[in-house]
């Protein structure tokens, strides 16, 4: 599903955020990405979304060299990836419901179908009762869960999550991880960047460890 071939990423010409990354993630796999702050986790995920371009090497997703995607194809590429952003990226001028509905509206889905799917997604993250609230009225953890609902509402083939449990208590973190596992079980490829070493160790999935932009360990699922 995802192939990194000797990928390097420099910001501003000198600073090397990622160096010589070489790995592949199979379709339907669930992978954790970990490492210290600044190790390059977010950068790696942004490369997959093609929000950044590699300074060297190639990134292939579903067999396509995404560098070759034309600007006009990018929206359609991104629609197939569900992303939970580290900083949520919610719209604060509209309700929780409207935020989660956004990816479906962009695709022009029928309003009735949108409502059905949005409610299902909100139900999964336990926020159905807040659908009319504005994001500003929610706690940090609740906002994060709205972001998760938005990422999964489209039933994407690939799910990327950047610190999805950063603001959640242990119980909620475990629930959210279980949610990702559910998606993984029905065939979604999942890649999660996380600091929560205790939690991800318990979950027994493959772990990629980054240090200073290098892949220092690739531990297969136990």
């Amino acid at each position, binding site marked *: 599903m995802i192939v990194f071939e000797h990928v390097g990423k420099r910001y501003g010409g000198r600073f090397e955020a990622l160096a010589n990354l070489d790995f592949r993630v199979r379709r339907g796999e669930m992978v954790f990405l970990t490492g210290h702050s600044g190790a390059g986790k977010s950068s790696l995920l942004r490369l997959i979304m093609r929000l950044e371009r590699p300074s060297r090497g190639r990134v292939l997703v579903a067999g396509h060299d995404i560098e070759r995607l034309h600007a006009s194809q990018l929206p359609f590429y*991104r629609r197939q990836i569900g992303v939970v952003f580290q900083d949520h990226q919610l719209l604060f001028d509209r309700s929780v419901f409207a935020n989660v509905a956004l990816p479906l509206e962009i695709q022009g889905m029928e309003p009735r179908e949108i409502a059905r799917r949005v409610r299902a997604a909100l139900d999964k993250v336990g926020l159905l009762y807040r659908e009319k609230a504005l994001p500003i009225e929610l706690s940090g953890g609740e906002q994060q869960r709205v972001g998760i609902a938005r990422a999964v509402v489209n039933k994407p083939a690939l799910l990327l999550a950047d610190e999805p449990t950063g603001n959640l208590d242990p119980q909620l973190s475990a629930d959210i991880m279980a949610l990702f596992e559910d998606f993984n079980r029905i065939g979604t490829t999942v890649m999660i960047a996380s600091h929560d070493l205790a939690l991800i160790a318990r979950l027994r999935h493959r772990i990629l460890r980054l240090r200073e932009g290098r892949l220092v360990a690739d531990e297969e699922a136990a």
Partner: protein
Amino acid sequence: MSRDDTPARRGARSQRTQASSRLRAWGRHHRAMGLDSARRLVRQPLGSLLTMLAIAIALVLPAGLWLMLDSARLLDAELAESATLTAYLEPRVGEGEAMRIAEALGAHDDVAAVRLITAAEGMAEFQQALGLGDALGRLESNPLPASVVVMPRQEAPAAMQALVDELEAVTGVEEVRLDLAWVERLAQLAELGRRVALALALLFGLGVLLIVGNTIRLAVESRRQEIEVVTLIGATHAFVRRPFLYSGAWYGLGGGLLALGLLNLGGHWLATPVSALAVSYGAHFAMPRLDVAGSATLLLCSTLLGWLGAWIAVGRHLASIRPR
């Protein structure tokens, strides 16, 4: 990446339903964005009104000038039709002889009709026109010659000039005046006016683009985060651009409506003095009004200008917005 919806698996029929549902989705988004952008304008009534008023003012000037010239063209045609020659008879010619000369002139091939104005009639007309009845009434003798107004068959300037020469050769005719010069001057003036109106229209049209462009630029800036987010989750440029295009079109339409209102108001305000002035010149000149077609054209142009201004502004601005 593609899930199990490979084209091979889909029949022609489902492809057709998919195309039609995509079309419906497109129409739905247009409707939603049209309404949404209208709602945004209404939510900021003062700002929207000011923008529309600025557009209206930019439209009123060239449109008003154009209207005036358009009716001046009608007037101008009326005047050209009534282009006549005046043959002034020699002072010594008496009333009887004057009638004979008028008949002779009327018999000319190129003359359609003649009308004799005797010295006394000429005096009366003159007094009336100047309102100087008494002062002239006290004159010993009438200093005005009799004259014959000649309606030519052909109004082309060259033909008229030839006729002038021929009529001047008739005995008893002192001088033939061809009052074409001022008609021509008027036509030139009207042409000048039309060009000025066109230049103004271009200039002010550009003004409308700038007004709308600037307003939309601010709107894009204020919704920057939203644009970044929808781009992150796969919105196309067209999707992002749409609400702003509708805003621009609404601004243009609102500005056009206000301009129509201003034009009518101005028309009413000027109608009385203008028609009085026209009557004093013996001309019939009604204050011009925009008819339905003209109003529709104005609204269409203003709406298109608003849309275009938004398109340019959004296009320039979107390139600078990259999702973080």
